[in-house]
């Protein structure tokens, strides 16, 4: 549904996006991750034409964004909702007026607007706040209003620009759950930009890692976290602290692995003791994935690696 190919963007002489090529499928929750200045918001804004791109192509629903005229672009944007880090609500309008605004601008009938706004506020759980002003709401509630507003024109795609970055962890989770619900109920493709790994882990099915405008990782979320490459590790700021003596073997537990018993089984069957020196298990996109580092003596290395190979476990020697 969204095909990006060899996309480049410059701000005067600085290249902010370099040769980006990705495909995003309908119904996917797709995360664009990176530190600030990585170009992730810029990439997101290219999708609904808030930013233009220098070279390459960006096709959404078979339309090349760059080729759209001003009015075509406005029409096209009806199909893409967007939410922002600081909610971007109009302070002087009530919740109802804020949510109704896109439909009013597009000339919808009053009764249609009224019904739609009520339905959407119910969906986001704010039907009781219909007459409140934004400054009477908490951050999470404001973002819910913004989500309702972004859905008024029945978009296929929802863009989220750091939508949870200004919220506390619990509120973040509740907003992410709402986004997930919207994704499932309305089959809306969600593309979210974030610098928070927690967000990616909680809802994204696929993730794209950006650094200085370059893709440094692009995979299913579980894969990305399961076996992070050097760049990814650097990105996550993670390094294992392991002993200098002996051999350290890292064993990965992908999502469909009955991992709990593997280590103890290996110890029993090889009749051998080893130290577990590092380990991490995480819930990613509702699957548990992780890794564990064991330390063995040099002489046992072959035995252990053969055993691991036989069991088709992903592993590496550190």
């Amino acid at each position, binding site marked *: 549904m969204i095909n990006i190919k060899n996309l480049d963007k410059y701000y005067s002489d600085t290249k902010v996006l370099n040769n980006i090529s990705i495909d995003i499928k309908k119904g996917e929750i797709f995360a664009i991750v990176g530190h600030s200045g990585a170009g992730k918001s810029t990439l997101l804004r290219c999708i*609904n034409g*808030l930013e233009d791109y220098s070279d390459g192509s960006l096709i959404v629903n078979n339309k090349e964004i760059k080729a759209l005229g001003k009015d075509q672009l*406005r*029409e*096209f*944007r*009806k199909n*893409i*909702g*967007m939410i*922002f*880090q*600081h*909610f*971007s*609500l*109009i*302070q*002087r*309008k009530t919740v109802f007026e804020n949510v109704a*605004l*896109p439909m*009013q*601008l*597009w000339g919808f009938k009053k009764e249609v607007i009224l019904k739609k706004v009520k339905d959407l506020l119910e969906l986001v759980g704010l039907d009781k706040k219909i007459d409140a*002003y*934004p*400054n009477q709401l908490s951050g999470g509630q404001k973002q819910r209003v*913004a989500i309702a*507003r*972004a859905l*008024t*024109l029945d978009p296929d795609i929802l*863009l989220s620009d750091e939508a949870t970055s200004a919220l506390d962890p619990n509120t973040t989770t509740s907003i992410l759950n709402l986004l997930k619900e919207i994704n499932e109920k309305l089959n809306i493709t969600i593309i979210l930009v974030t610098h928070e790994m927690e967000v990616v882990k909680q809802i994204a099915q696929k993730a794209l890692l950006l650094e200085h405008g370059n893709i440094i990782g692009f995979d299913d979320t579980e894969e990305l976290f399961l076996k992070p490459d050097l760049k990814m590790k650097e990105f996550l700021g993670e390094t294992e602290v392991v002993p200098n003596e002996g051999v350290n073997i890292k064993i990965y537990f992908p999502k469909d692995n009955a991992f709990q018993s593997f280590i103890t089984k290996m110890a029993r069957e090889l009749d051998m003791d080893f130290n577990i020196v590092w380990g991490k298990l995480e819930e990613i996109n509702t699957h548990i994935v992780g890794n564990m580092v064991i330390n063995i003596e040099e002489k046992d290395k072959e035995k252990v690696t053969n055993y691991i190979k036989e069991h088709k476990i992903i592993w590496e020697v550190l």
Partner: protein
Amino acid sequence: MFDILFPALGETIYMSFVSTFLALIIGFFLAIVLTLTSKGGLKENLKVYSILDVVINTLRSFPFIILMIVLFPVTKFLIGKSIGTTAAIIPLTIGAAPFVARLIESALKEVEIGVIEAAKSFGASDFQIIFKVMLVEALPAIISAITLTLITVIGFSAMAGAVGGGGLGDVAIKYGYYRFQTDTMIYTVLILIALVQICQSLGDYLYKITKK
């Protein structure tokens, strides 16, 4: 004494309110052009912006009394004479319009960029963004700007006496200063204080009810 003061108050109110109103119309238009054409604006056009910028700064640099004299020919062309209360409205308007333009421009600039971006994201046109989003959001600041302008114009109008415009300032100079009628001077000042106070309070009230 009061038969001098009351007509003078009437003249002051007439001059100030009419010029403020006219200055608002012109200034509002200029502010919108400035906002649209500024860097990063909806219709960025730095040439138009810098020309307007220079014109506005030039007009604002004039001491009002000099501006009045410079504008004699313009006033004469527009209303057929260059002296009198109505004649004073022309320089007052032209003096205040650039001031209004700047104030409204900065009020519009204060509208959070994200709100404008959000409006774009659901397909609002530039016209809609200005009138249905930015002006709505900036209304309290614009009300403050109007209050400030009105009070400034009341101050300027004291100089209108120089072109036979009358008004309270004229009375204060003619009777209070030249003829040593201290009581008349005190009364004019008191009336002006009350007038300014009323305008400010009304402005503050309107600001309060529009600010959410």
